[in-house]
């Protein structure tokens, strides 16, 4: 059980790391993009929304660290 827990902790650190918002934020951005695509939005618009969402996630993470 300890080994399994360590294994899980290793992958949590590997993928999520110190900043959980950097894990949740991109997933949320992709969900929004998928919804826009499903709604029939133009490719350029969805791509722009995805790009801006990633930038906003990064900016929020940096701002949180600086605070």
């Amino acid at each position: 059980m300890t080994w399994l827990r360590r294994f899980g902790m290793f992958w949590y650190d590997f993928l999520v790391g110190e900043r959980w918002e950097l894990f949740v934020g991109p997933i949320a951005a992709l969900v929004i993009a998928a919804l826009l695509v499903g709604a029939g939005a133009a490719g350029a618009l969805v791509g722009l929304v995805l790009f801006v969402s990633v930038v906003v996630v990064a900016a929020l993470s940096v701002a949180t660290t600086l605070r």
Partner: protein
Amino acid sequence: MERAAEGFGEDPTSPLDRARRGRLGGPAELIGDRGRDEARLAARVDEIEVPQVRVHVERDPVEADAALDPEAQGADLPHRAAAIAGDPAPRIAVAPEGLDAELAAGLDHRRLEGVHERSNEEAAIAEAEDRVGDELARAVIRHFAAALHPDDLDCSPPELARARQDVRIVGLAAERQDGVVLEQQQLIGNSAIDALIHEPALEGPAVTVGHAAQPGGDDRDRHGATIAGAAWPTASGTVRPECGTVALMSSLAIATLVASFVASAVEFVEAVTIVLAVGTTRQWRSTLIGTGTAILVLAVLVAVFGTAIAVLVPIGLLRLIVGGFLIIYGLQWLTKAILRAGGAKAKHDEAAIFEREITALRAEPAVPATGMDWISFTVAFKGVLLEGLEVAFIVVTFGASADLLGPAALGAAAAAVVVLAIAALVHRPLAAVPENAMKFVVGVMLVTFGTFWAGEGVGVDWPAEDGALLLLLLGYVALSLAGVWLVRNRLEARLAARSSAGS
């Protein structure tokens, strides 16, 4: 009764007919009887003249090397002296030296007709056009012929602009865009203009025309789609040119190689610091064995997971998952690099890490006099494996998403060689390596590719296709630099506020 002449120039009073054959004196009496001797001789075959407009004697299809000519289907048309320089290539098409073989042959072809010599038992064949005794091989399914030169790439410039990156490297020289094979007349080695002089050559041995190779079955449709710029679906979702294609490294492959090299170099620098600390403090032999074992494990992981992921996971889902992880992973690198470049976070100090590792290792039990030092092995193995896992992750994700496992692995291997060689030369931690700048670059590249692939995974139809990668890259670089500037200004403003408050 006087018999009328049957043909132009025939003497009705002569005992010989137009073909200089003897005949009976009587007129034609039967239907189909032209008054020749054969129809009246009971011992001979009462043959029927068979009108035949055109006869091509076809042989069984054979497999032969594809023509090494970019325009094999029109080999008799271009004005050129020597069309073929390929060797070895049996049964290749030979372009005539004449300026217009078809025209010249059309004017003179009656003169090229040979005398009809036949036995009495053969059926007479009246050929409307038989200037050349054709013997054509039909098209057979073969691999694509190799383009002779990158300039011979099949795609026209407008198609190249719209084509996907992985399509641009495919050269299909001998196959044209129409995908239709037209059987050709036999091509004659000497000039048709000189046919009167070299007439015997026209009756020479048949020469097989090498038709352009054709992909079989669905491949033909795939090829058409590829030329048109759409993706050629394979197990991993991209074009897999078979033999004979021009293997030019695409810009996407170069970008993958560079990203893998830089990311791997950063991680290998950190791994080398650990290895140097263990080796200099304890035992080099066990340390190197541990390092080699870790590299072997990583190579197996990359080969197994990289191949399995590419084969088993559908390309759309794969790009969504991998793209998402690349965004997450890239943002972790990029935000740290921005904070370090802006002065908000301490930079990675390999010298300090080296000293810390040495202090920890000296606290361990002494090195055994003989045999393996398992502490050295374990520390080196763990350090290299953990640092290398990040490299393996990048290589696998890049390789699987873009079907570029080779360039990604090559970049990582090259980074390992370079870093290890430098470490062996200087024999101390590579503190001078600009790790933060490298992580900044890698972070931007990971986020760029991650955004692109994840977007494709959710169904985004990127404008400008792969050109969107460049736009994303420029956007992320510009905003990241702006982020560094903002962080630095924020810290300076904060320090200024503190100093003014203190004074």
